């Protein structure tokens, strides 16, 4: 009953999320929540599903603890795969939600649920044919994952190829799995007549069947020379969907043919060494080429894709071995590779998003602001290769050792380790001097070389000491002479030595404009407020987070496009106008209740987080304007006036000459919120709620989901790194042999009865 409940929950949840998520608003939220709950329920039901006493029907015609009289039965491996699949899917959904918002779940969540249903049927099937058919149907879950997030002819082409690879490979495997038992009868019936001697027709037929099975699995895993679709998927599909597309959907079609080879072909002990040699050559080609390409590939997603296919492609060695002994190691390898590569793909997705680049050279120095990601990558490396006694290393040694005799087994083992240089390159790059991409990324709370957790929070407080007349003004000063370094240089002489520490290199880097800002690829969104949208949060990193970002958005401070940035040049200090100083004080009063200098006079100086030549101040046209005393006479040229992007306000006078202060808006401009959020009504309460939530206060709106959403966005970088770290820890556990992975993989199944690893 638990299996039936699992299938029903999975099907209903997949259909419900596929229907509800594209509708947006409350329906989408409910669908997403229901989908995640269904993932948890599926994991629970899979864990509780009992092993059957016997698959065959008893005298009463019933097979207890099975579905449809023994057609589908649970097993240890099925339980493990489904529980781990559901767990990683939930983590990937959370990660995708943080990265892309609710829209990112449209394809991923229903596809994950459908994949779990298909995987359950494929791994629990009582016959290889049923398992292969279910594996083929499982592969079709890639279509919503590809098409829901990406539109256009290119995505349709990629989806068409996914249909082909999912169904055509399954049907070829089905044909082989159907023919092989029939031919095996002939072989067994004529064993005495030696009809299956080397070179005979039956031996050739079996060799052909084995080769076709290996090629089918290689093609499904994306092994070379079937790797083009991996690159296409890496370019087209969202990063959060890649683990499902590249790892979990091919898994059932990897496991089922291994059962055919180990259960039907291996006992015949046919002399088909030529086919085995070809399979070894195929595996060698895949591991060597993919490992080398991954090491030299500068596109992070492509490199990770190659690492994935290099590891998954190793499973074809099980066909070369043609020994029932590799039944367990092959399935162990599939599962450990799936979990490990899921963590690796998640790492690559988060790294690409955080540093706004997929270029590996541009990631130089990534370890400094992202130590948790570094720890995760280290764990992934350990989980990939394992330690002595670990399940993953045992499986690797068994696959390479049984596939070929000496010295080819050593060569295979060495080739399978060729993926190591890619990891080493990334880790080595991580300790280098940071690039501008890395420098402007949001640091984790454990970031090295920057403010630590408490220090970072201090850094987010308003500046506390009394500044010089022209220091730290969030204004765009006229003339090319003003820069961040100019500000610092002008302020330093006015400060007493004890309260004006020299800026550290890290601080100087963060306060200076990126060295290669001019001419570089501009960020995806230049709107400061776009930082509220998870997908483009990184662009606002230079402008700080938390209160600073809120303050900036409330005053309409926008980061200038990179093309307009002037390079920093130390030059003579600029004396701002009196009006600008007054305006700044008024702005601080409006935001924090008092001028900054009066709040915390004892704290040391904090470096300015706004590079002055990167900023301009623009008004919020929708803002209501509470009167502020003493702010008349805002002049053009100070940058603090209202620079209308829309026609002038209700009074009809030019906002630039309006004798009023820059207001603290009660509503955020629309461009601050994600268009998707606005269009679909996903906004967690009013914009004011967001402001308060981001400043750490309890919003008046009692919507718990809104609070969770706001908190998640506030700690986005840390949450993303934590999710990747959790996946890496899970991969390490599985690779080490926790959860009895090896034992579960060695269990006989209804489709392959009587097999054992010993």
């Amino acid at each position, binding site marked *: 009953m638990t299996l039936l409940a699992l299938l029903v929950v999975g099907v209903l949840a997949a259909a419900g999320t596929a229907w509800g998520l594209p509708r947006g608003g409350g329906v989408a939220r409910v669908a997403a929540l229901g989908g995640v709950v269904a993932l948890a329920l599926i994991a629970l039901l899979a864990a509780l599903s009992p092993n059957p006493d016997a698959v065959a029907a008893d005298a009463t015609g019933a097979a207890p603890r099975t579905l449809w009289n023994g057609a589908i039965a649970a097993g240890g491996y099925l339980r493990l795969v489904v529980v781990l699949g559901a767990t990683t899917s939930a983590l990937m959904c959370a990660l995708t939600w943080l990265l892309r918002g609710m829209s990112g779940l449209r394809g991923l969540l229903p596809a994950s649920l459908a994949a779990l249903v298909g995987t359950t049927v494929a791994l629990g099937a009582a016959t290889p044919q049923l398992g292969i*058919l279910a594996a083929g149907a499982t592969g079709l879950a890639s*279509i919503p994952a590809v098409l829901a997030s990406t*539109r256009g002819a290119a995505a349709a082409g990629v*989806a*068409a190829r996914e249909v*082909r690879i999912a*169904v055509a490979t399954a049907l070829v495997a089905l*044909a082989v799995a159907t023919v092989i038992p029939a031919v095996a009868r*002939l072989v067994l019936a004529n064993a005495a007549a030696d009809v299956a001697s080397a070179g005979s027709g039956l031996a050739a037929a079996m060799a052909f069947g084995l080769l076709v099975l290996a090629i089918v699995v290689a093609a499904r895993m994306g092994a070379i020379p079937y790797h083009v679709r991996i690159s*296409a998927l890496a370019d087209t599909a969202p990063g959060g969907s890649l683990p499902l597309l590249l790892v979990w959907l091919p898994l059932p079609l990897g496991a089922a043919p291994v059962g055919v080879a180990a259960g039907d072909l291996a006992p015949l002990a046919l002399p088909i060494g030529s086919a085995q040699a070809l399979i070894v050559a195929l595996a060698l080609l895949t591991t060597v080429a993919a490992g080398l390409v991954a090491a030299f590939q500068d596109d992070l997603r492509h490199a990770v894709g190659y690492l994935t296919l290099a590891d998954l492609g190793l499973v074809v060695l099980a066909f070369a071995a043609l020994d029932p002994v590799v039944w367990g190691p092959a399935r162990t390898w599939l599962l450990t590779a799936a979990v490990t590569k899921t963590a690796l793909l998640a790492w690559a997705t988060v790294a690409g998003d955080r540093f706004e680049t997929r270029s590996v050279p541009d990631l130089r120095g990534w370890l400094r602001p992202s130590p948790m990601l570094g720890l995760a990558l280290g764990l992934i490396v350990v989980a990939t290769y394992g330690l002595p006694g670990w399940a993953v290393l045992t499986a690797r040694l068994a696959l390479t050792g049984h596939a070929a005799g000496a010295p080819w087994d050593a060569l295979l083992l060495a080739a399978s380790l060729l993926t190591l240089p890619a990891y080493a390159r990334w880790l080595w790059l991580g300790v280098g001097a940071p690039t501008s991409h890395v420098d402007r990324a949001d640091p984790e709370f454990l970031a090295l070389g920057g403010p630590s957790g408490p220090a970072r929070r201090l850094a987010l407080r308003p500046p506390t000491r009394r500044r010089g007349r022209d220091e730290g003004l969030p204004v765009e000063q006229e003339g090319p002479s003003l820069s961040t370094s100019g500000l610092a240089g002008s302020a330093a002489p006015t400060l007493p030595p004890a309260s004006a520490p020299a800026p550290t290199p890290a601080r100087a880097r963060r306060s200076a404009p990126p060295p290669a800002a001019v001419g570089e690829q501009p960020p995806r969104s230049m709107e400061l407020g776009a930082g509220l949208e998870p997908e483009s949060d990184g662009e606002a990193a230079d402008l700080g987070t938390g209160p600073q970002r809120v303050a900036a958005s409330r005053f309409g401070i926008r980061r200038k496009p990179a093309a307009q940035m002037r390079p920093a040049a130390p030059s003579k200090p600029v004396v701002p106008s009196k009006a600008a100083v007054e305006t700044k004080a008024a702005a601080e009063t409006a935001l924090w209740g008092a001028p900054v200098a009066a709040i915390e006079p004892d704290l040391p100086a904090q470096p300015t987080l706004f590079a002055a030549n990167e900023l301009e101040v623009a008004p919020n046209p929708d803002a209501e304007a509470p009167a502020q005393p003493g702010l008349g006479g805002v002049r053009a040229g100070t940058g603090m006036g209202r620079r209308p992007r829309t026609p002038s306000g209700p009074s009809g006078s030019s906002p630039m000459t309006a004798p009023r202060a820059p207001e603290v808006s009660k509503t955020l401009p629309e461009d601050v919120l994600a268009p998707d959020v606005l269009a679909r009504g996903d906004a967690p309460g009013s914009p004011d709620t967001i402001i308060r939530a981001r400043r750490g206060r309890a919003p008046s709106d009692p919507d718990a989901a809104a609070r969770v959403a706001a908190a998640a966005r506030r700690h986005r970088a840390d949450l993303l790194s934590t999710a990747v770290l959790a996946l890496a820890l899970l991969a390490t556990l599985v690779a080490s042999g926790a959860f009895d992975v090896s034992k579960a993989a060695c269990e006989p199944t209804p489709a392959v009865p009587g097999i054992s690893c010993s």
Partner: protein
Amino acid sequence: MVTPLLVIVAVLAVAGGVVAVAAPNPRHATLGAFAALVLAGLIADPLPSAAGLVARLAGAALGGWLVWMALRKAPATAAQTALGWAGSTGVALAAFAIGWLAATAFAQALASSGAAAGDILGQTLGGGSLVDRAAIGAAAALGVLATAPVIMPRDGHRLGLGVLLLVAAGGLLCAALGSALADTLELALALLTALTGAAVAAVTAAMLDGSGDLVLRDALARELAVHHRAADEAHPGDTRSGVSE
């Protein structure tokens, strides 16, 4: 009486496959694939159970209907196989004959060795059943017909129809060699047919929405081409990119 009828049904299924790959009109091609799917579900000896038969027909109908509905904005003509009507028919007939003969040889080997005596395979294919031979012949023909659009696709919709023909061929092979199909296997085949039809419909609709036609564009190749062209235009005198003025 039933046996010759089923052999004719097998031939008609192959004819549907020919229409699916050779008809220029995508709607006609869809009808051909639908006919092949429906008729392939009937070819079995012994006949499938009522539940299995209903499941197969329902799966075929659902899959075919979804593909048909996705073609509302489709152009009147699309890329068909380069072999044309005559070439496709000839290839299908040759494959049907090869499948028939291979099944006959296999049946004789089974019968002479007594390997399958007593089981259903021995009683049907080994016993000289024409239906099983026709099923294997039809499976071979549909498989060969599907090879071109699946391996070298020029049209996303036609690729999907090729995959659907492969589903029909797989069902025929299972029915002929795998003895009588259990109801669960029939249900699995029906589900796979319906899901494949849904996937093909989704792909077809996405293609029509994206480009207005059914031409399969290689996303990766196109992006690379654009990338290289942009690089060359940005650095026209740069001989490193292979282009010099």
